[in-house]
């Protein structure tokens, strides 16, 4: 085979390998991109944002809470109140109720999302059950709080924020000894 041909083939094979690697690299790139832009309403937490830092620009806002269960998740999952008038910069606390109505011990994970996505970076949660996996014994009921502060620097055209929670059943995805430890 001619030298030129070998070189072309080698370069093309390297491109293929590079693009395959790139397809997997897209996963972390996407995560970082979403974090920076607030795309998909992704929120990282827990936040160390404190209400003491703020004095100016406070205003009233409406926060709505939406909960739903993914697929066949049998738990009851509700917020105590469906919406709350808040003042930005003031810490708020809302309780959520979890009840495992099935006859088996289960583990659930809540995934949050803030809408509109642009508002996500101004929504600071200092305490949330969504940071952890929740284990409930059969028939067990539990109330857990979300503690949050809305940054007063939130753009004026955002008049309300929706905090959506989706509850997933992750019992099957965890090894038994890990479930017992929870």
């Amino acid at each position: 085979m001619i030298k030129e041909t070998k070189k072309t083939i080698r370069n093309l094979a390297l491109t293929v390998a590079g693009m395959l690697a790139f397809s997997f690299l897209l996963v972390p790139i996407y995560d970082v991109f979403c974090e920076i832009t607030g795309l998909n309403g992704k929120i990282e937490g827990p936040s160390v944002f404190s209400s003491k830092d703020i004095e100016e620009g406070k205003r009233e806002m409406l926060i709505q809470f939406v909960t739903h269960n993914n697929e066949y998740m049998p738990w009851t999952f509700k917020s105590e109140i469906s919406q709350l008038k808040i003042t930005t910069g003031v810490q708020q606390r809302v309780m959520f109720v979890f009840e495992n109505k099935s006859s088996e011990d289960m583990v659930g994970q809540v995934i949050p999302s803030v809408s509109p996505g642009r508002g996500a970076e101004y929504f600071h949660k200092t305490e949330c059950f969504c940071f952890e996996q929740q284990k409930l014994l059969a028939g067990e009921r539990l109330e857990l709080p979300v503690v949050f502060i809305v940054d007063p620097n939130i753009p004026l055209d955002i008049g309300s924020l929706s905090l959506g929670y989706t509850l997933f059943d992750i019992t099957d995805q965890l090894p038994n000894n890990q479930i017992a430890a929870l």
Partner: protein
Amino acid sequence: MSTIVETHDDHGHHGPAKGLTRWLFTTNHKDIGTLYLWFSFLMLFVGGAMAMVIRAELFEPGLQIVQPEFFNQMTTNHGLVMVFGVIMPAFVGLANWMIPMQIGSPDMALPRLNNLSFWLLPMAFTMLVSTLFMDAGGPNFGWTFYAPLSTTYAPDTVTLFIFSVHVLGVSSILGSINIITTILNMRAPGMTLMKMPLFVWSWLITAYLLIAVMPVLAGTVTMMLMDIHFGTSFFNAAGGGDPVLFQHIFWFFGHPEVYIMILPAFGIVSHVIETFSRKPIFGYSSMVYAMTSIAILSFVVWAHHMFTTGMPLAGELFFMYSTMLIAIPTGVKVFNWVATMFKGSISFETPMLFAIAFVALFTIGGFSGLMLAIAPADFQYHDTYFVVAHFHYVLVPGSLFGVIAGVYYWIPKWTGNMYDETLGKLHFWLSFISVNLTFFPMHFVGLAGMPRRYPDYALQFADFNAMVSVGAFIFGFTQLLLLFIVIKAIRTGKKASHEVWEDTKDWGLEWTLESPPPYHTFTVQPEVK
């Protein structure tokens, strides 16, 4: 002494092997091109039969013929077969036949790899189509196989689907490496890049697109495989993944893929139009630059398939404008084809009819694409029959007509026999009328809000759907006529001259060969001035 050895060589190497092994073990670019084309033709009828099931069910509202589960399998497999089994292999087949003959090289650069990349295809499709006969049923999540429909909720056969996509990907990648290597290293002396025939150019660009995006597709299905079987959570929100990520990765592959399915048709149509207008193509270099810019832009427009997933305004604007930008190089191409025909002494043989229909109807598909690119309006069009109308206009009277034009144009060269011109014209007119009858009314029902992918629909769409079904049946059965025409040309066609068409000496090296060309051509490379 030496003369004796040479005569001996003539007997041993010049003809093809006999029997089935000729096709199994062949490394000859013409044989492999033929295999690709016949395979694609077979799959056209397989995918076509699935389309007939879809249209029979949609002939009137309500459920008559198939259950929704099977209907979903039909739409999914129709898409997969037509994309990966018909259009792509047909173009690769044409590339195998024509690229060595057009650049004056004796064969492809990697003939054994060429054999492998063809024979992987029947394997992949046997695997894919066999799922339809299994208890779990075939893939039923649409050809775009969005997660979690294709992971959490998929039938068990999804694993076979994933492996068949892997095999298809390997086949395409090997084929593309071969094509690029051939084009870059084996051109006849004197044939600079900017003297290459446009079909060769279109394939060079297409092959680069394939090299870039087929690995991404392989990565996507590998992630699905790991989510399904190895407990990862790439696309599973419960484990920290994101289903929207699937759509981003898929369309990062998917949008360049749709240009992979049209660029070679651009090349073919350019040749056909210049031949039958008896004028060299208008704006050769702008054609090359237009194809290159379409290919580059195809990497930055993918999210226009996802406007409704929720995207920041800046994102919607970026993808809207970058998508619209593609209309400029595409417009340049359409302009050049029309300008080539302008004041040409045109004759309307069958390949030219298909090429002109390509220009007109592909443009309609392009315009509906522009309408879909408008982000605020897309919320109305999204997932309706308007989208179905759009991509069928670019794929059927676009890509498929391009392939058919190429087959009519080159079949006298391949077989040494002319096809039947009267039957060819009949085939064209039946196809042209029925393709419009099939896909044009889809625009109307789509704008009126008929969603895609359902086996049933609201009563007010009944009349248009009946028309569409009738058109689809005519179009489907008309393609049997093409099969008849091809077989007739091979077996009993009139002898074609070496030039085949008028004054073709100017249009490319392939016309300097005999019809049919000898098994091995250009063993001594011609000089290009």
